[in-house]
């Protein structure tokens, strides 16, 4: 019965989130080699991950357009903001 609950996107999204976390740590660890590009990649991955937590786990995918839109706009704005602030500051 657990398998039935895991159908649709849930298992796939969760596996993607775990893989993205591991990739982030590897990229983040190798920061010196990748330089600023590594930091930008890691920050963008984080906000993409946050978006999937919202859409799948919080069920915002099927929420009213306003609520889903606000959340996705937040992800986009924060991604742009942290990348720009990091690049300007470093």
């Amino acid at each position, binding site marked *: 019965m657990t398998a039935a*609950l895991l159908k649709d996107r*849930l298992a796939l999204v969760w596996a993607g989130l775990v893989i993205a976390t591991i990739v982030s740590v590897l990229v983040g660890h190798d920061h010196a080699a990748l330089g600023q590009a590594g930091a930008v990649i890691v*920050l963008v991955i984080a906000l993409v991950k946050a978006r999937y937590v919202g859409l799948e786990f919080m*069920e915002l995918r099927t*929420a009213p357009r306003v*609520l889903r839109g606000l959340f996705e706009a937040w992800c986009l704005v924060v991604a742009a903001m942290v990348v720009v602030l*990091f690049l300007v500051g470093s």
Partner: protein
Amino acid sequence: MSTVETSRGVESARPAMPDPARPRIPGEAGIWVFIGGETVAFTFLFVIWLYSHSQHPDLYSVGQQQLAVGFGAVDTLLLLASSLFVVIGVRAVRAGLRPLGPIAFAGGLACGLGFAISKVIEWGGHIAAGQVVQTNEFWVYYYALTGMHFFHLLIGMGVLGWCFLQARKPALSAQRFAYLEGGACFWHMVDFLWIVLFPLIYLVR
């Protein structure tokens, strides 16, 4: 299978399965005002961290090298695991799968507790090494951001405890189920805020 059949008897008292074609608010509207407010507050913390980073690049360079990335990474995976448990818990309660619901919420709570223990060990190590709030601005913001998140994690654990108790009941009213869903969404917020905090604090140098 017997569990499913037993649950059919109380199905009328349960909320209907969500219809993907019809938009619906997860939980109820009030929780989203709260989640929105908390999210905006944390957004300010992200900005403050990056601004402080830009003002004191040397302090941050040294400070971040003293952080244990492993703790942050394991914490992230623990919260992802807890979120999966909580999603399964909500779906189980919705489907009337009686034994699975409370088990899933207990699993989510256990992962949350794992995060809390991990954070306390991590903080303990830094405090023992003399890396405290008084050390410099890097440590002020490190403790402020991780502490603020920890505070929300503790509230979230209380919420999951409540969800666990609700999931044990034979049936929930639609209103009660909406609160359970809202509680689950609060926990997922604790998860996604850490997902952003982890690279900001530990990885981006």
